[in-house]
């Protein structure tokens, strides 16, 4: 064979590799997932400072309501796990919840597709819980600007609920008592899981609406919180109250 023909043959071989052997797999299609968390009392948006009556007929209000949400993870129909957000901070004192449509939102990019469950945790996980909040910019969830950190016993305050309550049931709303629940420390990092089938289309902004039922802060199927007498915890030294508050709070989430 002439030299030209050999070269042509080699060129053809090379070109064939280019066009057949080295294809990239098709790009995964992505979408935006928005966990929209709305604090509610019965069917209405929760309003900071407004007087409500709980299931035990005590009038109360809440002036502080904020918590850390970590490791929001979706499970795909194929069993794969997708992290939406590693850590976020939800603060219901900013009056977002007075809006009819929006709650506090946790947003992330995910692959489009079918999903069968989601889970998240209340609190900051142990890999970050002893982080220095001063190292984070003010816009970061773990920044000191969120006012949810114990500076004398390093760790984040996972959940803050503060408010006032009547001393007796069916009272006048004079609020003779106040309650303050600050939970934290690694043992009280608490995961919650929700089984639910949903499909997210490519390029969609998918809002997953959830409700945080303020009434459920005070009771669940097995326990009732006496916010008059068991009214205070910073967790260390009063761990059991903090643990119960965590349990109540965990049970307050549902799809809406």
């Amino acid at each position: 064979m002439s030299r030209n023909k050999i070269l042509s043959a080699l060129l053809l071989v090379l070109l064939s590799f280019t066009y057949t052997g080295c294809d990239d797999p098709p790009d995964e299609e992505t979408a935006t997932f928005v966990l929209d968390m709305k604090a509610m009392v019965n069917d209405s948006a929760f309003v900071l400072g407004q007087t409500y009556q709980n299931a035990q007929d005590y009038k109360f209000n809440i002036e502080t309501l904020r918590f850390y949400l970590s490791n929001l993870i979706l499970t795909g129909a194929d069993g794969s796990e997708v992290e939406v957000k590693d850590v976020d901070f939800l603060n219901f004192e900013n009056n977002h919840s007075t809006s009819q449509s929006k709650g506090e939102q946790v947003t992330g990019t995910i692959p489009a597709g079918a999903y069968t469950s989601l889970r998240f945790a209340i609190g900051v996980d142990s890999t970050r819980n002893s982080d220095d909040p001063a190292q984070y910019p003010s816009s970061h969830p773990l920044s000191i600007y969120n006012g949810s950190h114990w500076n004398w016993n390093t760790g984040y305050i996972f959940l803050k609920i503060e408010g006032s309550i009547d001393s007796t049931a069916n009272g006048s709303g004079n609020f003779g008592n106040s309650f303050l629940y600050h939970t934290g420390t690694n043992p009280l990092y608490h995961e919650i899981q929700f089984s639910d089938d949903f499909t997210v289309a490519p390029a969609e902004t998918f809002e997953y609406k959830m409700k945080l039922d303020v009434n459920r802060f005070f009771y669940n199927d097995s326990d009732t919180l006496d916010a008059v007498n068991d009214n205070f915890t910073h967790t260390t030294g009063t761990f059991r109250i903090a643990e119960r508050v965590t349990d109540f709070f965990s049970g307050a989430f549902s799809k809406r």
Partner: protein
Amino acid sequence: MGNQTALGFLVIALLAAGCHKDPPLSSDAPYELNLPAGFSMPSIPANNELTVKRVELGKLLFFDTALSVDSTVSCASCHHQQFAFSDNKALSLGVNNAVGFRNAPSLGNIAYHTSFFRDGGVPTLEQQTLAPIEDENEMAFSVPGVVERMKINPDYVALSKIAYDREPDAFVLTRALAAYQRTLITGNSRFDKYYYQNDVSALNESEKRGFQLFTSEKTNCSVCHAGIDFSDYSFRNIGLYEMYADTGRKRITQLDEDYGKFKVPSLRNVELTAPYMYDGSVTTLESAIEHFNSGGKENQYKDALVQPLSLTTDEKQDLLNFLKSLTDVSFIENEEFAP
């Protein structure tokens, strides 16, 4: 002009340029820690290496009352250089003369500590700075509030940029304060001259006997007050009380065995840091020695090393004299540390 003249002008111009020695205004440089004999380099976080401008910024902040809500209280209000950066009160007074929780400890050699506060609740010096600023009984303010004040202060803005290449923020505030505090090294007492600098005449006979007693199995002082900083930074219950209102380390760990345990303080400059103990309840060095001589008060968690010592009057005097030889005058007079 002729070539030689031109060359002459050129040479002069070049020389003149070379003689212009003013450093540019915006430069920083490493801060060399002057370590006394026997001291090793303290551990310093990678993102807060010591530089001249970082230390300068930290010093300004340390003495700045703007860190408190009403601009009356600074770090130096409770950590006075003349008292080896401690206070001469049992409990210091914060904003509105609020009474503090525990006795303000000396900041001498704070760079070597492995945990912060008397109960060790905080792991780094950078993180420690957050607490006094936000404590109701100390500065009664907030870190965001301090940052806002820093941002409108041109000196702080300029120094933040040079030292940390950013605007004033919580990071700059905490890192700068830590940088300044890390420079507060004390290791030049008469004892140091005797022990680490080999000047056998630096201590008198009583002080030398006191040192022997201090390190002997008769007292076991040096088991806890160990090493070059006279503390192993461990937490101990020394039988100050039978019942502790302030449970110390237990407040942090919630463990029964940590009841009444507090961090062993350094004894450097102890002559200057009265009153003593976590609550400042022991007013003189003599009574501190007597506390240990007596074996303390009984409680379930008292350390086994705290036992009656049966010291003679002379032995107590020797110990006292030895402890006084740990005073480092150069530390409390060092102008580098002063505003």
